[in-house]
């Protein structure tokens, strides 16, 4: 029996079967028709749902004989407008002989008169034409009009029709996604899919997004999803190695029915990416290019020179008048006329962005190929920073014999990000003053001398530096001189062999590699914050080099079996497989200090004092067996069962194997008879799924105890440093998988002839045996030990709606909307531990102060601190005869001595009413996790124009704006430090209504309070894209098949109450510590203009 699959993306799978000399046209619905009845009649069968049903009905019950003579016939294929169509496959139905049309659309083929010819071409309706007696054919093909309304979904190791899905799988609309001017797909993913939270830590070029699907399961381990790129599952592929223009589809598996096929790695959700493959036809060349620019979304408003000097005089009445008034001979009022240096203008620039993609695709029936290359460059919006990528891809599929197909794809990319890390300490010491934005905002706008060129040209502001522990280094000079770059070379290779053992059974063998060479280079000369000569800088001019090589490989062998019963009511398909995967990684690096010749740059590292060395080797392996069965009764009742067994080298032999089952059920209620009473319902499906998935994101060898010999622990016996062994990890042989049990109930609804599509899912995920880097009593000699302990629950609701609001001849308007709610609750922690307190590291005064709490019964991340209560007012004090103020009895302190507190000082709420402020007064002051997130997408098209407007939001999460500790009151009391304009309004005897404390009234240091907690909710106009596709006739004149011009903007406007630069910020991001803002690299808004041309 031979099958000809004509089109599979239709609801009706049309096949021609040749059996017993008869041809049958069948549909997956089970209708089987003999097309012999059309003998002698002209037949043109456009395989769309409605038309096919009609035609098929007409074709019933007729005989067909094939005993006529074979002749050579010629023909010409044209498109709907009569233009010749090249690359169309013309096939003789009975013999399988085929030909392909040339550039003029002509073909010639041998066929019998009674036979049929099929004409296939991607993007066009397949045509079936009887040969008949004529010898010249003029065939017109019609483009597929309704752009893929029935979709197949990649569910891992296979695809299913979307209607037959039992699990919760979301598809990303790549067409809309690709309208965003971004370097990698993850940057445009936020808000596109319900249940998928995508957020940036900051705007630093080259940093990846955080993607969390249905809330974080793990407290201390990674919650990143598993990526499957062209069938290669990998935890951390580096999203940017793929060119978004090469991506054909992104499917996101969310519930356990869907993810269980990835077993031990499925618990965080799975993102399946398929790249574009070659297509039959003459070579098609496509170019897409864009050029644009970016700038910061917001600059902070700083004090003007006048306000700055006024503040200095208030804050330091002894020294400041000499510096700013006496010495230069000025009055305060004179500063109103002085412009001063605007450091933000010097540091933040409008920077260019380029993107160029070129692809060639084509092929014959046996050979498909696609070759593409791209160049991307984006200068950062902060001087001397940026990202660039060069990438090339080649894909080849070859049918060797009918049953055997082989193929391979290679993707090579080299990308580089460079520039100072804004949110990392930049000095030799790690204090708050070494951070880049501290220096940008804090560097004073004026000096007492009046010559501001000095300020801009000199590395240090000598006069302004009161304390030498303040490492305020000229941000502009430092940034211009720093060398910090990270270069990645990534090679991804995949190959497969597919063999059809029988019509129903297919063997698929895949192999793949993913190799990454990563190189970190840093060099700091004497004009940088890390290299300037200072008594503080024990490294002097210094450099650092590190190289990481990572090789992943995999082999997967699967058998796919598909069967349908004779009566076509039951259909069954199954996948059975065995996979192996492994990784080896090595890392080597070195540092050198006090380099003698700084002009040599990194190559002068051999002329210096050697610093610490770094060498690391690690690896793991994974073996899995998997099985999945789908049973389908008339597409009405659907059942999916999945099972996977994983064995991982990360666990000891007794815990090595784990088993992950899941089941999914679906009921397409719309196919029940009684639903015919509701004609507005085009389709309705209830889904239920339950399953278990795992997480194995721990270090490769954490089950082994380890000893290390680190330099800092050498002991200098007799003045000779002697190596010294430290017990740095206790290995836990009992470690096993973390298991997530997830239940999902979903509803898919299509209403009003599919004008409205609605998907609703509710889920509950309980994650047991958390792989927790658990706190243990220090008396054990260890701080943390990896244990399987704890329980975290995530539950949520996801709603996606897409509507076709208007559809006229020339005008269409469609809308997609999604919203997701997720609630996260910690239900168990380490033995007897009731809470995990977490701190963030940014400067020593605060480093050991907890800012976050994960409490039993609470969410994984809540902010904790004192409750801010404005400032002390005169009424809180007794005035003594000598004019001094003493705090009244009964008025609580702010943590300082009673006698030290003055009117206008920072005040906190004394929660336990004991009169003093101490750790007992620390309470929950904010939530780290949003209540809901979502996206809102609109497409308007009018003739050749298309306008896409995409909004994205996050609601309910708080941000701790640490910048304000330094710049809204100067809590460390640093001299000559500029402040935000918001601090112009501060408490003073003349301005007693202000809630900001007086100059110098910051209270105790090193405490976190609700003063700096801000609502981090935002609504962002994320993408606006306007495109115009030229009429084909015009494109033809320019020797093109098509031409599109567009303008696209990203991060255009953000509505938020957050006072910092951008509410999408989390510079110390982890599940336990979200939403911390200190010196974050600013976000860019981008505008690009581009063209897309096909030849």
């Amino acid at each position: 029996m031979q099958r000809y699959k004509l089109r599979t993306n239709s609801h009706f799978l049309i096949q021609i079967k040749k059996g017993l000399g008869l041809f049958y046209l069948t549909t997956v619905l089970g209708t089987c028709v003999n097309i012999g009845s059309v003998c002698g009649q002209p037949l043109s069968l456009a395989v769309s749902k409605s038309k096919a049903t009609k035609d098929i009905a007409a074709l019933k019950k007729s005989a067909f004989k094939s005993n006529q003579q074979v002749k050579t016939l010629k023909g010409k294929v044209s498109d709907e407008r009569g233009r010749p169509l090249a690359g169309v496959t013309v096939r003789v139905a009975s013999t399988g002989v085929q030909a392909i049309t040339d550039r003029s659309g002509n073909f010639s083929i041998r066929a019998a008169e009674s036979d049929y010819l099929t004409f296939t071409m991607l993007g066009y309706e397949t045509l079936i034409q009887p040969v008949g007696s004529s010898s010249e054919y003029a065939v017109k093909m019609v483009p597929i009009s309704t752009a893929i309304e029935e979709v197949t979904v990649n569910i891992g190791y296979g695809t299913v029709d979307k209607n037959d899905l039992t699990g919760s799988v979301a598809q990303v609309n790549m067409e809309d996604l690709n309208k965003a001017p971004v370097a990698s797909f993850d940057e445009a993913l936020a808000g596109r899919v319900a249940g998928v939270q995508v957020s940036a830590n900051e705007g630093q070029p080259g940093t990846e997004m955080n993607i969390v699907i249905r809330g974080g399961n793990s407290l201390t381990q990674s919650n990143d999803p598993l990526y499957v790129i062209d069938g290669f599952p990998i935890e951390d592929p580096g999203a940017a190695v793929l060119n978004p223009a090469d991506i054909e589809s992104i499917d996101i598996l969310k519930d356990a029915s869907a993810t269980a096929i990835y077993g031990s790695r499925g618990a965080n959700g799975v993102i399946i990416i398929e790249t574009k493959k070659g297509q039959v036809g003459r070579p098609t060349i496509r170019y897409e290019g864009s050029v644009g620019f970016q700038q910061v979304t917001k600059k902070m408003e700083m004090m003007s020179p006048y306000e700055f000097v006024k503040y200095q005089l208030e804050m330091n009445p002894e020294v400041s008048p000499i510096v700013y008034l006496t010495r230069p001979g000025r009055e305060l009022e004179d500063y109103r006329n002085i412009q001063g240096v605007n450091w933000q203008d010097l540091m933040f620039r409008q920077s260019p962005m380029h993107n160029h993609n070129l692809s060639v695709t084509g092929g014959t029936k046996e050979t498909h190929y696609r070759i593409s290359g791209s160049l991307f460059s984006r200068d950062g919006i902060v001087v001397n920073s940026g990202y660039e990528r060069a990438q090339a891809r080649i894909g080849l599929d070859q049918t060797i014999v009918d049953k055997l197909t082989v193929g391979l794809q290679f993707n090579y990319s080299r990308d580089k990000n460079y520039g100072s890390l804004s949110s990392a300490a930049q000095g030799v010491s790690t204090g708050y003053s070494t951070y880049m934005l501290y220096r940008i905002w804090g560097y004073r706008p004026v000096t007492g001398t009046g010559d501001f060129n000095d300020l801009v040209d000199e590395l240090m502001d000598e006069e302004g530096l009161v304390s030498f522990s303040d490492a305020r280094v000229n941000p502009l000079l430092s940034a211009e001189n720093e060398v910090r770059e990270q270069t990645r070379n990534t090679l991804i290779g995949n190959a497969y062999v597919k063999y059809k053992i029988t019509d129903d059974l297919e063997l698929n063998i895949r192999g793949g590699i993913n190799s990454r060479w990563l190189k970190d280079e840093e060099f700091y000369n004497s004009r940088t914050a890390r290299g300037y000569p200072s008594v503080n800088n024990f490294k002097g001019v210094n450099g650092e080099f590190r190289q990481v090589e990572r090789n992943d490989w995999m082999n997967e062998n699967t058998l796919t079996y598909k069967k349908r019963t004779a009566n076509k009511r039951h259909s069954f398909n199954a996948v059975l497989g065995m996979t192996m995967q492994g990784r080896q990684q090595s890392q080597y690096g070195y540092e050198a200090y006090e380099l003698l010749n700084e002009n040599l740059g990194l190559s002068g590292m051999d002329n210096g004092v050697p610093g610490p060395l770094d060498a690391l080797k690690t690896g793991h392996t994974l073996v899995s067996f998997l099985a999945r069965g789908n049973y389908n009764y008339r597409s009405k009742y659907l059942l999916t069962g999945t099972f996977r067994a994983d064995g991982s080298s990360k666990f000891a032999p007794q815990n090595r194997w784990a088993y992950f089952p899941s089941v999914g059920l679906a009921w397409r209620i719309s196919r029940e008879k009684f639903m015919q009473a509701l004609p507005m319902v085009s389709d309705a499906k209830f889904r239920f799924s339950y399953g278990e998935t795992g997480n194995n994101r721990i270090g490769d060898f954490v089950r082994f105890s380890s000893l290390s010999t680190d330099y800092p622990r050498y002991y200098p016996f007799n003045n000779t440093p002697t190596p010294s062994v430290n017990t740095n990890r206790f290995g836990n042989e009992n470690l096993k998988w973390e298991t997530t049990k997830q239940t999902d109930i979903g509803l898919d609804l299509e209403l009003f002839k599919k004008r409205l599509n609605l998907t609703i899912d509710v889920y509950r995920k309980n994650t047991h045996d958390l792989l927790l880097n658990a706190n243990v009593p220090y008396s054990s000699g260890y701080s943390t030990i990896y244990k399987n302990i704890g329980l975290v629950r995530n539950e949520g609701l996801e709603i996606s709606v897409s509507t076709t609001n208007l559809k006229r001849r020339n005008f269409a308007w469609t809308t997609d909307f999604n919203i997701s709610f997720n609630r996260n609750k910690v239900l168990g922690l380490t033995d007897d531990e009731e809470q995990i307190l977490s701190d963030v590291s940014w400067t020593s005064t605060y480093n050991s102060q907890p800012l976050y709490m994960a409490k039993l019964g609470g969410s994984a991340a809540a902010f904790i601190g004192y409750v801010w209560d404005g400032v002390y007012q005169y009424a809180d004090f007794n005035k003594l005869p000598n004019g001094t103020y003493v705090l009244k009895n009964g008025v609580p302190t702010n943590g300082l001595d009673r006698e030290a507190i003055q009117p206008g000082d920072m005040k906190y709420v004394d929660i336990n009413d004991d009169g003093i402020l101490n750790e007992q007064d620390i309470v929950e002051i904010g939530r780290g996790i949003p209540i809901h997130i979502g996206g809102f997408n609109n497409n308007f098209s009018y003739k050749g124009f298309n306008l896409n407007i995409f909004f994205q939001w996050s609601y309910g999460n708080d941000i701790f704006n640490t910048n304000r500790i330094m710049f809204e009151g100067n809590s460390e009391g640093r001299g000559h430090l500029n402040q935000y304009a918001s601090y112009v309004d501060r408490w003073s005897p003349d301005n007693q209504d202000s809630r900001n404390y007086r100059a110098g009234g910051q209270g105790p240091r090193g405490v976190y309070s609700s003063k700096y907690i801000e609502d981090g909710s935002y609504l962002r106009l994320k993408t606006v894209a306007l495109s115009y596709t030229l009429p084909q006739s015009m494109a033809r004149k320019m020797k093109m098949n098509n031409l599109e011009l567009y303008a696209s903007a990203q991060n255009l406007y953000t509505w938020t109450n957050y006072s910092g630069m951008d509410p999408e910020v989390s510079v110390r991001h982890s599940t336990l510590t979200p939403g911390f803002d200190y010196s974050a690299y600013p976000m860019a808004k981008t505008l690009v203009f581009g063209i897309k041309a096909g030849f």
Partner: protein
Amino acid sequence: MKKTLLYIVVVGMISMTSCNKFLNVVPEDFVSPENYFETEDEANFALSGIYSTMTQNATYASYMLGRMGLEGDESWNHYTGDRFTVADNNYGPNESRILANWREWYAGINRANIFLENIDRVAMDEDRKRSMIGQALFLRAYFYLMLVNRFGAVPLILESIKTSDVESLQIPQTPAKQIYDKIIADMEEAAEMVDDITTIGYGGRVSKSAIWGVLARTCLYVAGNPINDVSRYEEARDWAKKVMDTGVHRLNTSFPQVFINHVRDIYDIEESIWEVEFWGNGTGVYANLGGYVGRNNGIGNTQDPNVGYAVGATRIARPLYFKFKSDDLRRDWAIAPFRYVGNPADTVYWESGQLYQRYCGKWRRTYELILPRSTTRTATNFPLLRYSDVLLMFAEAENEVNGSPTEEAYEAINQVKRRAYGYDQFTPNTDIDEDDLSYQEFLEYIQDERSRELAFEGLRKSDLVRWGIYVRNMQYIAQDVAPLSGDFYDFPRRTFGSVTERHTLWPIPTYEMGLNPHLVQNPGW
């Protein structure tokens, strides 16, 4: 079809059996205790790891140099970042520095336990092995001394954990007395095993003299408050006597030279019996081998690299100054009479009324040999046991044992005093020699003399506590500082005024109690 299925089953079964082999990925990157401890070098490095416990920030590199209130009534810590911490006695059970100190000692104890459990496997010379075991055994006991002396009852863990079960991790406290008994027993055993100090030749390694001296100290702790096992006084005397009888030890002729030697990394095993060794000035590969001796507790406050930056955190309590007679040469060395101002630095002498302002002057950075004088770290060693301490311990114990001072006791204190006044330590000197003191007078003399001799060496609080006068003495200083006006005095006022009975012991860290429900908090916390 059936053939194919069969094929799959067979392939599957073959792969299953080879799977476990495939899944055995052995780390090549690091060593585990199981495959370590094979060579003598490895044993040495593991021993060195135990020693390094003392060079960490949470121990002698930084925190214990005046930042944890261990100086008692001698000084206060003037470091803005240290307000409302253990440094100014204004803290609660979740004080991070106390926790860090607790953690560091236990990490060291764990390393010692692992060492002691595995050392048998090392093939090496048995005598050298014995000496190593002795050092490890002693160091573990010393770390417990640090814990029990400051926290009272703590978990006594003498074996490394084997599993991560609750039972292995949540160990209840052992009463302080039992811990002391174990410390003394271990130290006695260790003393038999380690080498003589002359064999070793430098003060950075544990010698018989060091152990005997620390045994004397430990016995004094047990004999005093709160254990009050007075029978230990005799032992204390005997251990101190053993050090004196070696014939090796004597006082350096110059009191300042003792500390200049520390600064210059010069060993003087005659006087400086045991030291924590620091190395380098914080540059290069071994950047973290330096400490903060002379930098944290040095003479402030200049950035002049020729003088050397010091935070100048350790400032004196006025009564300390008045404990010295004016011709006591120790006074103006231990308490610098000047400060540095500006860059380049000017030496500016304090006014006579400026006493709470004065800095600890024992380890002066101007004597450092490693240039440039880095702002971050110094190579200056910190003394853990000096011979003068041994002499004073001997004299004190002798007085206690006999109920009055003996000739030998007088000779011991007078050796210390003669050196302090610039005389030969062994030549009796009727001008200054002490005599005719009652038991109580002798005790009080020693109580003051220990401050004069050993100020800022981290011993004072423990001494005051064992004498039962900690709170009294701290309140005495609080009264002394109370009438002084000016914001400057807020810090010392708080430091001394905050002390109550509960401060004799540090609280068990909240963090630790959260993870180990068996722990019982110290009284008052």
